[in-house]
């Protein structure tokens, strides 16, 4: 299978007062269709790793290949384009824009990419919302939705450009048990039915247990890479 993402020998340092190495020679690959979780104690560097893989953090040593392309020589505009086209994000907080309707929130990254005409994009966004069972909320503003619904909208937004990979930073961290169950089932469904590649940082062992592959981290190193 083709490698979607390849991290080789990634080192990362924080420089406050004294230099502290937060990632130590991290190397691994992600293949198409894998549903992966990264687990580890708080402060082990798992989120830091995710933001490096997401191309948002560019201050690191080593190389990162997404879809076979090295991210090293890209400028910020090119990286923004790659995030737009190839990566979908789900964060702990939903980050929906309250000024726009739910449907438009889902559409914004697609409008930015400009691959489909607006009308078609709207249908596609509607389809995503239908998959998640929130099509009836499409014209509401995000602040009228419940926490679980908001997070589902955020996942729909991450999917709008059919990304190579979805990255999640504790996507269920802010949700109660019932809602996090719903969101987890959605991820599972995406993995099984749509073969969507996903890389999710979590500290929830139950969540991790349900994924295809668990990367365990401790003190900036990968301990266990199944």
């Amino acid at each position, binding site marked *: 299978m083709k490698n979607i993402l390849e991290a080789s020998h990634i080192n990362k340092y924080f420089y406050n007062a004294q230099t502290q190495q937060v990632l130590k020679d991290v190397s691994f690959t992600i293949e198409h269709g894998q549903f992966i979780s990264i687990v580890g104690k708080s402060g082990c560097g798992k989120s830091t790793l995710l933001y490096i893989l997401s191309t*948002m953090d560019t201050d690191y040593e080593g190389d990162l290949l997404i879809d076979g392309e090295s991210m090293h020589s890209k400028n910020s*505009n090119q990286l923004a384009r790659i*995030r737009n086209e190839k990566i979908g994000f789900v964060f702990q907080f939903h980050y929906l824009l309250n000024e726009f309707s739910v449907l438009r929130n889902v559409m914004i990254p697609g409008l930015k990419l400009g691959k489909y005409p607006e009308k078609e994009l709207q249908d596609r966004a509607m389809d995503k919302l239908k998959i998640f069972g929130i099509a009836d909320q499409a014209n509401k503003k995000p602040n009228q939705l419940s926490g679980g619904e908001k997070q589902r909208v955020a996942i729909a937004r991450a999917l709008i450009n059919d990304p190579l990979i979805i990255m999640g930073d504790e996507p269920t961290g802010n949700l109660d048990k019932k809602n996090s169950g719903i969101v987890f089932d959605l991820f599972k469904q995406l993995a099984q039915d749509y073969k969507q590649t996903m890389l999710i940082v979590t500290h929830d062992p139950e969540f991790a247990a349900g994924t295809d592959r668990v990367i365990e981290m401790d003190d900036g190193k990968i301990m266990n890479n199944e």
Partner: protein
Amino acid sequence: MKSNLIFRIAFSLALARWRQTLIAAIGVMFSVTMFVTLLGFMNGLNKMLDGLILNRTPHIRLFNEIKPSEVQPIALVKDYAGYHNFIHSVKPSGGRLEIHNVGAIMNSIKHDNRVLGVAPTIATQVFFSVGAIDINGIINGVDPEIQSDLFFFRDYVIEGNYLDMKTVPNSIILGKTAADLMLVHIGDVVQATSVTGDKIQLKVVGFFQSGIADIDKVQSYTSLATAQKLLGKPNSYITDLQIKLKNLDLAPAVAKEYAQIYQVDAEDIQTVNAQFETGTKIRTLISYVVGITLLIVAGFGIYNILNMLIYEKMDSIAILKATGFSGSDVRRIFISISLSIGIIGALVGLMVGFSLSSLIDQIPFKTSALPSIKTYPVDYNPKFYLIGAGFAVLTTYIAGWMPAQKASKVDPVVIIRGK
């Protein structure tokens, strides 16, 4: 498509804080309004005040000055050519005040295409006899039509018809102040004594008021023919040629040229009235400074509002950047907010400024000094409107640029991980 998206995001962000946005736009509107009104009003007044003198002053005046002959007879004697001659008690030579060969000179000046027109006049000292006393005065023999065309004479005749002085023989238009002194009314007859001692009866057909008391007390107007009759001179007798040019700035050069060609004395307006230009320039400068200061203050308002908006919408900026908007996209979003505020504010400001100017234009403004002015003068020069709008857009662009730059530098990792 893409710029449309950026504009839509900008619009909804601005709308999310519509009260502040509105206040910023009102700030720009108010500045532009004040800018165009202030400059229009100030320039209207400037033009009026300058017109007070400049309208009636010829750009070039040709005349013969009474002065001693520059070449004394002794210098023409060959025997004394190499000598240094001392001559005492030199006096001015006998008065040939008229311009020699005036018809030909006028004709040739009229065909000079720098010249708007030329008015022949005769200026002479007289005494008006009022009872037992004499009042000193100057009679100007003029052609009322030419004088009106070039120097707005018609506007200053406040009573009577200015053309009567040509049609009624031996008639005079007196200065209002002089008429009040002499206690005469239209239809009365005054007696004038010329410098040569000739007396003539003149019928008063009108009064003029220039707005400058010294002029109104001394000057009076009559036709060329009457003036020539008063002096006992033939009808070719002309003492002054008053020339108006198409371009005022050429006056000194043209004056010099004419003095040489026609062998007369020539005086240009810049030399006589140098102070006017200075006053006008300084008044205009002050108006611009005040207007531009207002616009800069409005710019600070926009700067503040955008800064606030950016702090408030940090999350939105972070997610836009995370989902693929580049730094320059974010910058464009905030610059379009600021430019929209600027453009809309400027457009409304221009309209309100125009209305306010028209309103000022309707306010009655009567002063004895300015008989032709009925309301406050306003200048609707499109230049002010262009400068006002242009500067408003420029200020808002600069005011928006700094916060937009800051927004474009927002690091999404810091915002998202900080949660």
